């Protein structure tokens, strides 16, 4: 294939690439299932199995798995697409985001690890329930976790869809065939999660990560080489992105606050998601999180180079015309691969993207489903549910969560998929005060936290709804808007809402404390926040100590 030829995506089926994609997918999935069967636990399987590792993950494995969590369709498809379409402000903030996140988790995560291991907490909602003695606040945290995970899963589906479309599956025509790649992506994900549970994704994650690293390394060395170096790539990007005010090569004065708040808001939000909390809590001892905080930036470097794939596509004049004849920036990375790589390697690269989206999507939907079962179903509907009943509920909910994700794609503007993740961030960030401030102090009143959360959720959702996508005219078209009371300053909605959240929580706390409204009873003690493996009452496995809460069978 000649490297610089214009090539419309999805116009014809690339047989070789499609075959490689299917074969690799079957092999990887098959290996995962076989391994899961071979290593079946003898005792009653539980939430611990993967995420909550009865096994206790060490430094290296944690590094590997957490890194795999970072490398999703977000990194691979959405960020480069944003770079390609609108430039630095909406894309490259992912680099400061993934730098800033590590000092943050360095500070508070060990405390969450300790208190969770002492009390058998498995979800952030568990912790909030124990710390603030409030079922309503815990419910708010759980519901937010489930809703915020949906658009994040939607982003993964968009990634799989993009690959299938570029390979040539699905075509123009009726509504159904147009969305065929999406429905295939959804069906594969649903079948995969339904039959496998968490064990297979965990094992497949290793294979998937190796596949991804190979593709990344080849892509960021080979493509710039073919395009005559980074100087040429940046010049091409500069020429395209500086041409209109809607795009930016380097953020101008009006984009500074947006850039900074997008980075900080995303960083603060990342470790509030149920699936990432789960991954951190599954480590063997309190220090592993911190050691990882120093090792994980290695991934951020790769993320930065991957983001530049968007600029490389500008330099390579990659066509992103979709099967429906309209330009779709989400197709940019698979289209670039199709243009630059020989078919067989393009097939490997597609597999990496597709499997790299599928595994996190499965893990996220299972984490959300288990959150529902543990903190909503058992707490409010059936306190005596049998493990089998809980497993059935989890399975059903994981399907509902995926349907929710599908709805996000069908009804929202998917031409800027990065926005899905940012939308999830707007919601999940509002649980930060209860969780992270709660790790340090009970000064904030439980009802004040609940009110702050409610105000921020409502405002954030309305503000996001009001953003109209310029291309399609749909609502929820972006995640940056003007800050109230500040002229002409725009910021990430999540951070503006977060500021409101904190202000409401503080003001109401002062009032509620003056009125001497009961703040409940704290189930935790100061030493709980420092306990390490080997200390009294620190369980080897999560979810098992004497709280009487055997975790449900994972889906």
């Amino acid at each position, binding site marked *: 294939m000649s490297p610089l030829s214009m090539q419309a995506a999805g116009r014809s089926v690339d047989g070789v690439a499609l075959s490689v994609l299917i074969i690799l997918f079957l092999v990887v999935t098959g290996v995962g299932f076989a391994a899961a069967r071979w290593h079946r636990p003898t005792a009653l399987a539980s939430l611990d199995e993967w995420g909550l590792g009865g096994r206790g993950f060490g430094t290296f494995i944690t590094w590997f798995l957490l890194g795999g969590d970072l490398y999703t369709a977000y990194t691979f498809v959405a960020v480069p697409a944003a770079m390609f379409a609108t430039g*630095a402000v909406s894309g*490259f903030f992912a*680099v*400061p985001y993934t*730098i*800033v996140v*590590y*000092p*943050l988790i*360095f*500070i508070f995560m060990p405390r969450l690890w300790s208190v969770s291991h002492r009390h058998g907490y498995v979800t952030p909602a568990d912790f909030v329930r124990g710390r603030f003695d409030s079922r309503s606040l815990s419910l708010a945290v759980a519901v937010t976790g489930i809703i915020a995970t949906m658009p994040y899963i939607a982003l993964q589906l968009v990634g799989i869809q993009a690959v299938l479309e570029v390979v040539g599956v699905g075509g123009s025509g009726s509504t159904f065939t147009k969305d065929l790649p999406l429905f295939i992506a959804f069906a594969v994900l649903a079948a995969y999660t339904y039959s496998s549970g968490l064990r297979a994704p965990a094992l497949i994650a290793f294979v998937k990560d190796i596949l991804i690293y190979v593709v990344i390394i080849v892509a960021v060395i080979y493509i710039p080489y073919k395009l005559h*170096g*980074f*100087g*040429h*790539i*940046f010049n091409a990007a*500069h020429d395209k992105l500086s041409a209109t005010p809607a795009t930016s*090569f*380097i*953020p*101008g*004065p009006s984009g*500074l*606050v947006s*850039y*900074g708040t997008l*980075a*900080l808001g995303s960083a603060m939000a990342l470790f509030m998601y149920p699936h990432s909390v789960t991954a951190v809590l599954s480590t063997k001892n309190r*220090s592993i999180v*911190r*050691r990882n*905080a*120093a*090792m994980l*930036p*290695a991934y*951020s*470097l790769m993320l*930065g*180079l991957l983001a*530049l794939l968007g600029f490389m596509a500008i330099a390579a004049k990659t066509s992103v015309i979709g099967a429906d004849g309209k330009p779709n920036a989400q197709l940019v990375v698979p289209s670039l691969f199709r243009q630059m790589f020989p078919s067989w390697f393009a097939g490997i690269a597609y597999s990496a993207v597709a499997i790299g989206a599928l595994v996190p999507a499965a893990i996220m939907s299972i984490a959300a489903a288990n959150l529902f079962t543990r903190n909503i179903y058992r707490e409010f509907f059936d306190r005596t549910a049998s493990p089998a009943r809980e497993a059935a509920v989890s399975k059903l909910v994981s399907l509902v969560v995926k349907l929710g994700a599908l709805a996000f794609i069908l009804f929202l503007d998917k031409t800027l998929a990065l926005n899905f993740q940012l939308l999830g961030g707007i919601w999940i960030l509002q649980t930060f005060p209860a969780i992270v401030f709660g790790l340090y*102090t*009970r000064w904030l009143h439980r009802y004040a936290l609940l009110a702050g959360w409610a105000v921020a959720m409502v405002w954030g959702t309305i503000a996001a709804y009001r953003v109209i996508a310029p291309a399609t005219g749909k609502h929820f078209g972006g995640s940056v808007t003007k800050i109230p009371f500040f002229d002409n300053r725009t910021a990430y909605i999540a951070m503006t809402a977060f500021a409101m959240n904190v202000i409401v929580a503080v003001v109401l706390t002062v009032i509620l404390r003056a009125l001497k409204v009961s703040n409940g*009873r*704290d189930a935790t*003690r*100061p*030493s*709980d926040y*420092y*306990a*390490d493996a080997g*200390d*009294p*009452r620190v369980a080897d496995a999560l979810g098992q100590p004497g709280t009487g809460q055997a975790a449900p069978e994972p889906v």
Partner: protein
Amino acid sequence: MARKVRRRKLAPGTLAVVGLLLAAPLVALLWVGSYTSAKPRLWGFPFFYWYQLLWVIVSALTTAGAYFLVTHTGTMVEVDDGDEEETR
């Protein structure tokens, strides 16, 4: 209970250094106006781009430094649970 939970208590000076090490990447990267320029270029990368990528490496080093300090210095002290039950 058989024995109390112990934690590492750092000297005030060390704690300040840890704070600085952790705060440095946050301050540097969230002060966006300090690096939004195209020049000087490095290997074709405009300043805006290589500066942030450089911070990936710097932040790994500062965080590693903070990790070393919080795990290798200071003295172990017992955490006092007191009778805080309702008060905190």
